[in-house]
């Protein structure tokens, strides 16, 4: 099961990478917004974990592109944001997010979310 983690904070990458790898997920990471879509195409992940605040492009823009691309539109996306305002959540939902999670999160929550999103794959 392939996970693509798009996040720019190295120690968060390391922690999530560790937690998911332990559980047998094949985790790849990508640290900027510019070419995140290319990374998704290259990697063809089963689930994407996407941070909102990325250098280059925001997670919202990336999500919008993903949902607009027939080949990528069905990949489940777990979105991470440091701002839990309902406005952000609404925006992510409008753009077609699969699950939305606010930082800081518990490790088990991330794991549970990824499991749920990949259950039907």
């Amino acid at each position: 099961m392939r996970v693509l983690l798009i996040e720019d904070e190295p120690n968060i990458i390391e922690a999530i990478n560790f937690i998911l790898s332990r559980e047998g997920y094949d985790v790849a990471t990508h640290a900027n917004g510019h070419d995140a879509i290319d990374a998704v195409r290259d990697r063809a992940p089963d689930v994407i974990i996407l941070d909102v605040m990325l250098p280059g492009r925001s997670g919202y823009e990336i999500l919008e592109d993903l949902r607009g691309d027939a080949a990528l539109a069905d990949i489940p996306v777990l979105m991470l944001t440091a701002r839990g305002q309902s406005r952000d959540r609404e925006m992510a939902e409008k753009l077609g997010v699969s699950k939305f999670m606010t930082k800081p999160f518990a490790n088990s929550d991330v794991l549970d979310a990824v499991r749920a999103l990949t259950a039907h794959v």
Partner: protein
Amino acid sequence: MKDRSVGSRIRERRMALKIRQAELASQVGISASYLNLIEHDKRRIGGKLVVDIAGALGVEATLLSEGAEAALISALREAANVVTNVAPELERIEEFAARFPGWANVIRAQHQTGLKLERTVETLSDRLAHDPELAAAMHEVLSMVTAVHATAGILHENRELEPEWRARFHRNLSEDSQRLADSSQLLVNFLDGAQDAETRMASPRDELHSFLENAGYFFPQLEKGDDIEAIVTGSELLHSKGAHYLAREVLADYAINAKSMPLEAFEAAHVDTNGDVAALAEIFSVSLAAVMRRLAFLPKPILNQDYGLVKCDMAGTMIYRKELKGFSLPRYSSACPRWPLFRALQRPGQPLVQIVEFAAREMEQFECFAVSEPQGRPQFGQDTTFTATMLITPNAERKPPEAQVGAACRICSVETCLSRREPSILVDGI
């Protein structure tokens, strides 16, 4: 409030006392129809008749002929409009202002304090939602908390972790907790600054205006060619970097004008030309806008004439202003689009002069000189932007007004105006 005329004041007072027109007319020995004409300002009234009507209405004659100060009344009206759960006697507002000027001013002052506080609250909530500095500090803290939380969780939940992983996560934890300590300190400093409410809440432009007002817009040091930097950094009223920047800009312009129009020569030329803006520009070989700013920044005792000034950019934003008594320059809301200031932007470089009077205050007239000038040196292939400067001075000899303007829509009584942006809070025609 169609106007503040004698007729309307008589009508207002008579209706407040519930006296019929015919009744009042017979008391003062005129016909009811004549009184009706007076009340609608179709007939001039003066002298003895005013005294008689005032007597019949039980008020001072001066209250009828002059009314209470218009600005005070519009402030009271505005204050009344804000409060919804009580019904002040709006029809007796003039009487109130005239009979209890002290109390009326208390209401005005409290209303203004209320507005100021409202503004502070707005700025505060705006800050939380839109201040990029605050948002960035907050984001940094949350990111670090997330990393620390996730790493600590791993260390806690995986007791049998391989030594190299354990060492790595310990190192991450140490790094992140340090960053967290730094970023939370930053955040605290940032929020702490808010205690100094006056300085944190005031925008740089507000700071600039307190600074200019405190100096009376006059800087004798610069007349002698002193250092601008010393004035800016030495001022207790300029706190933010933004305010320093704005003050430097204004003072640099002041210094240039002080040099090209030396005080004594300018004072003499002002007398010789009788304050003719164009003639002064000619004498000192400077732009009209420079003369306007020089005039406005010199105190009344020097020029023996009151000047106000307002400068705006093409977005209509007020860059700075110097208040002139009677000519309301709104501080927070937007100005009246009918000011010659804005027309000057439509005709770049063309000087305009116009006699204006405010819709709500008869008798007071102002002569306005406006001109726009390019911002910086115009370049080929680049759109030039302009600022407009308007000099305002009381017009001594009353002339037929060339334009009726307002201060801001909310407190303007002109009934039909194509430029109206929002409804007026002034009650019509009482």
